[in-house]
């Protein structure tokens, strides 16, 4: 049976169809999960895609965190289910406390829409399992608040525990320690600012994002997730 991916959609999310299509083309089945739903039962992995959830009012992710579905996402994550937040999804996961740190306005105060090189820094996460450390991937970014920050103690923990999953080769937004993506302590929740779903077809200029999404699907094999309700 194909791996089932739930793509969580908030009002204002705008990358859900891209994410659905990208994982479908890698052989998974995918559905959009509405933010008002209170269950994510039946899914082997969850993706929180990009956009402007709840208009990004107050702060990106600040209102989305209180959407009903987030309780189910939290339970799914606590039980070890793979969860990936892309761009706005990363912001939602930090606001929800599922990932450390926060995303603040880009250094230079510019909205950035370009393709960047990111380097895989750890193969020990659901998004990078099996991808060799040092692999450089060309993946688009598209954000205003992508400048990752955290306090010094948190940064030390992230480094010591090998939880910086991706770093920018040439830091575009001022993120501390060039961080483009991090994972939680259990390594099953990953957030990243670049958009792998936008680098999943030769027509889009790069297929490097498929490397990450493929790793996510491999991590989400139904057998590995049998206990996730």
């Amino acid at each position, binding site marked *: 049976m194909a791996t089932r991916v739930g793509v969580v959609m908030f009002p204002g999310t705008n990358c859900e169809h891209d994410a659905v299509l990208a994982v479908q083309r890698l052989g998974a089945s995918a559905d959009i999960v509405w933010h008002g739903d209170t269950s994510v039962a039946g899914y082997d992995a969850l993706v929180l895609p990009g956009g402007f959830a709840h208009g990004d009012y*107050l*702060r990106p992710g*600040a209102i989305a965190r209180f959407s009903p579905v987030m309780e189910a996402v939290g339970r799914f994550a606590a039980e070890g289910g793979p969860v990936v937040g892309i761009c706005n999804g990363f912001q939602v996961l930090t606001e929800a406390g599922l990932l450390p740190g926060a995303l603040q306005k880009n250094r230079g105060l510019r909205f950035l829409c370009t393709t960047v090189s990111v380097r895989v820094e750890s193969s020990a996460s659901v998004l990078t399992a099996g991808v060799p450390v040092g692999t450089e991937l060309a993946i688009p970014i598209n954000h205003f608040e992508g400048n990752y*920050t*955290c306090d010094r103690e948190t940064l030390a923990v992230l480094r010591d525990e090998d939880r910086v999953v991706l770093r920018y080769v040439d830091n575009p937004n001022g993120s501390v320690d060039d961080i483009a993506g991090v994972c939680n302590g259990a390594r099953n929740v990953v957030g990243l600012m670049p958009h792998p779903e936008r680098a999943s077809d030769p027509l889009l200029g790069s297929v490097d994002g498929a490397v990450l999404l493929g790793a996510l699907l491999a991590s989400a094999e139904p057998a590995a997730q049998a206990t996730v309700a």
Partner: protein
Amino acid sequence: MASPERFSVLVEVHLRQGIADPQGATIERALPALGLGGVTGVRSGKAFRFDIAADDEASALALATVVADRLLANPVIEESAVTVAPAAVTGPTA
């Protein structure tokens, strides 16, 4: 039994010291271009005003602080300051 009083709340949210404030920095850099020199230490932030009905000022402050901590500010990067005062009687009388 006394009915609850109304209190006016002001919550100011600003970035923590040490967190880069590109908006404040940009404003500060723009001021000399307007011929307004000598302005330093510009920090940007947000202000929220709302009313709370509570039995006393201490309860109003307690609730306002929870609102500020749980929603209005992200403690990772922001701090908040909460001010509570009895609501001024405004508007036409009935």
